């Protein structure tokens, strides 16, 4: 198997890890996370502005588009720490949008949007549809070209942060071929966006009705690069989600350990019971494997062949581990774990949501098996 990757770090990556660790911890205490659950916007605009000022949205954007000119590898520690602190913002969707523009955008489109995104303009993607399929090419939304305009129709689900994005990149089919349309939210009619009730209460997700929206043909991504664009979405998306899930896994395990070290039953600290200690150790071992796969995926990301194997391993490991660790976190908190006040449910719900957005562990294993054995 010559497509198994290695692991390594860059100086910038580690510096960003240190900065992000402190920033996310300071800006996203759990009280604030819970307060934002009941907030329409769902995040703190000041924190979002600071994220932009820190240049974190520009990291993986080339310098000639006002970016920092680093790679997705340096995005990973930031996304990881955001996930760890449930600091949920349009960071992921905006970063991913930039990667999509880089993969499939025309020079004009890049020039028009990348500097904006690098500077902190929120953006998002509209990919999923009602069939529940993770195959991004299995879509029914269409675009009909007449002259230099494209009339869109169909429905998109799980359009994250659409309430604060200026740009929505939507997948559609034109004459049966998948392509992508850049939709400015200013052009989205009243009521075309419906906030969805999603399992992760810290996220904001919307259903977008395309009917009645038209875009100029200039707003279509390069149809000849659809394959590269889809790959960018799958791989960059999986990398970001894996980072967020791995951070969340660390947090939910630490949260559980904290409880096991303080809660008493039968006059004993419950962490001394092997029935709780050993499964927690097992989850911790799986977490370290997640983090190893994550930084391997970051390291190999741009490496043909190895990149996809590493990313899918990271995604599969991260989702499976996050789900199980959070599931056990609820159980091990006993009756308190059954309450909304216990943070365990926040992580469990997020693990479900991330898997739904990005493909669950089984899905990535299926893709992996072809890369490994065929």
């Amino acid at each position: 198997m010559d497509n198994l990757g290695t692991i390594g770090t860059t100086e910038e990556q580690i510096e960003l890890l240190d900065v992000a660790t402190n920033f996310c911890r300071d800006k996203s205490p759990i009280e604030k996370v819970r307060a934002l659950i009941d907030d329409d916007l769902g995040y703190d605009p000041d924190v979002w502005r600071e994220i932009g000022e820190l240049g974190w949205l520009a990291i993986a954007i080339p310098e000639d588009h006002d970016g920092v000119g680093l790679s997705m590898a340096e995005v990973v520690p930031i996304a990881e720490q955001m996930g760890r602190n449930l600091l949920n913002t349009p960071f992921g969707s905006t970063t991913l949008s930039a990667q999509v523009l880089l993969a499939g955008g025309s020079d004009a489109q890049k020039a028009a949007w990348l500097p904006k995104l690098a500077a902190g303009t929120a953006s998002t993607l509209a990919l999923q549809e009602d069939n529940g399929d993770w195959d991004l090419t299995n879509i029914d939304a269409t675009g009909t070209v007449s002259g230099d305009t494209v009339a869109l129709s169909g429905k998109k689900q799980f359009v994250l942060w659409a309430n604060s994005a200026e740009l929505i990149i939507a997948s559609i089919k034109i004459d049966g071929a998948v392509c992508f349309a850049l939709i400015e939210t200013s052009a989205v009619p009243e009521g075309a966006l419906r906030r969805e009730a999603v399992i992760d209460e810290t996220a904001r997700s919307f259903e977008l009705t395309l009917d009645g929206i038209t875009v100029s043909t200039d707003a279509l991504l390069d149809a000849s690069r659809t394959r590269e664009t889809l790959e960018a979405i799958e791989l960059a998306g999986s990398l970001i989600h894996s980072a967020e899930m791995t951070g969340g896994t660390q947090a939910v395990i630490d949260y559980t350990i904290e409880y096991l070290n303080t809660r008493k039953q039968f006059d004993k600290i419950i962490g001394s019971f092997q029935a709780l200690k050993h499964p927690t150790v097992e989850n911790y071992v799986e977490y370290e494997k997640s983090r190893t796969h994550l930084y391997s995926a970051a390291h190999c990301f741009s490496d043909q062949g190895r990149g996809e194997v590493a990313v899918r391993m990271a995604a599969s490991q991260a989702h499976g581990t996050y789900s199980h660790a959070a599931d056990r976190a609820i159980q091990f908190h006993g009756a308190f774990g059954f309450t909304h006040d216990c943070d365990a449910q926040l992580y469990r719900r997020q693990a479900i949501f991330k898997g739904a957005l990005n493909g669950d562990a089984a899905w990535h294993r299926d893709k992996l098996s072809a890369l490994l054995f065929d």
Partner: protein
Amino acid sequence: MADKPNAAELKEYADEADAWFKENTVQDPGFMLPLTFMEVSTDQQFDFLRDWQRKVYEAGYLGASWPKEYGGGGMHSDYQRAATRAMKKSDAPIMLNAIGNGWAGPLILDLGTEEQKQKYIKPMLSAEDIWCQGFSEPENGSDLGNAQLKAVKDGDEYVLNGSKIWTSLGDRAKYMILLGRTDFDAPNKYAGLSFFLNPMDVDGITTTKIKKLTGEYGFVQCFFTDARVPADCLFGGEGNGWSMAMKTLEYERGAKVKPVGGYFVKELDVMDIVELAKNSMRGGKPLLDDPVMRDKMTQFMIDIQALNLNNTRRRMPQLMQDRPMGLPLMNKLARTDLIQRLTEFSLEFQGSKAGYYVGDENAVDDGYWHRSYLNSFSATIGGGTSQIQKNIIGEHALGLPKTR
């Protein structure tokens, strides 16, 4: 003791019951009906279930085999079993007054005074008097024997101070079976406990709702501040609280329960998951065409069938010779864990739509599976966590030494 009916008599009764439930069961009241008495979160749900229980009782299909003189039907328990089967067949809603009918009632019938039986049983069956349970305390979720709620005798009253938690229907109940500490100097923690049939409508008892991880309500925490209750609420005598509590747990576990009838928890019908799997698509193909999913689902079918058959085998002593306590003790652990894994697995069927939750028009089955999965923890945690169940089985069925 009422006569055992002959086959013909029973058949006739069963047919009547089937017909009655077929006619009277409301499948969809227009809002989500709780699957268990622990999930009643809205007035709408409460009122509906309370009315339903009364209706069933008045039709004679609840408490049919409890003594006539206290409000029961006085019939042989075969009749009640037939009635309960009829409820199941028609997928009738649960009986609301679980703690009353399932815990307090059997205890009172078993050990109560004539006066107590006269006072409590009938209104309990008719759901006029709702009962709740006050065993757990914030600091002693698993360690019931360590209950600290203070009950001090003062003349012909007890003065209660402390708190109870995880109380289903605690804000709607008229009575609570309560475990309090009357002696703080007892030789061991159990000996200091006493058991009360405690009225909730007295000064000094307040409740606050607890929001569940599902986002819904269903439990309350009860606070007792110099609450004064009549001394004759004491049940079983001072210092016998632990043995009374253990008895109620036995009734719950199904040991020597008089069959009041009905069910307080609607078992999730696993065949619904098979349906879900059959109707789910993945990559344009039925999910059950995916061999990995098929294999997992098949394993679940094997587990489900084993637990269903266990319920029959539990009544076959000839196949329980070696460890007779094994099957009875393992049922709760095995079933609640299976439901948890199964409902979790059901999310895998949904692909990206697993991201939706109760309340979204796009959610699969209105979010029923997510809700069932999250609610499944009440069963793996409540009534002794799965971890504690394993201690119990290890110690009482396998004879392994205590963990301490």
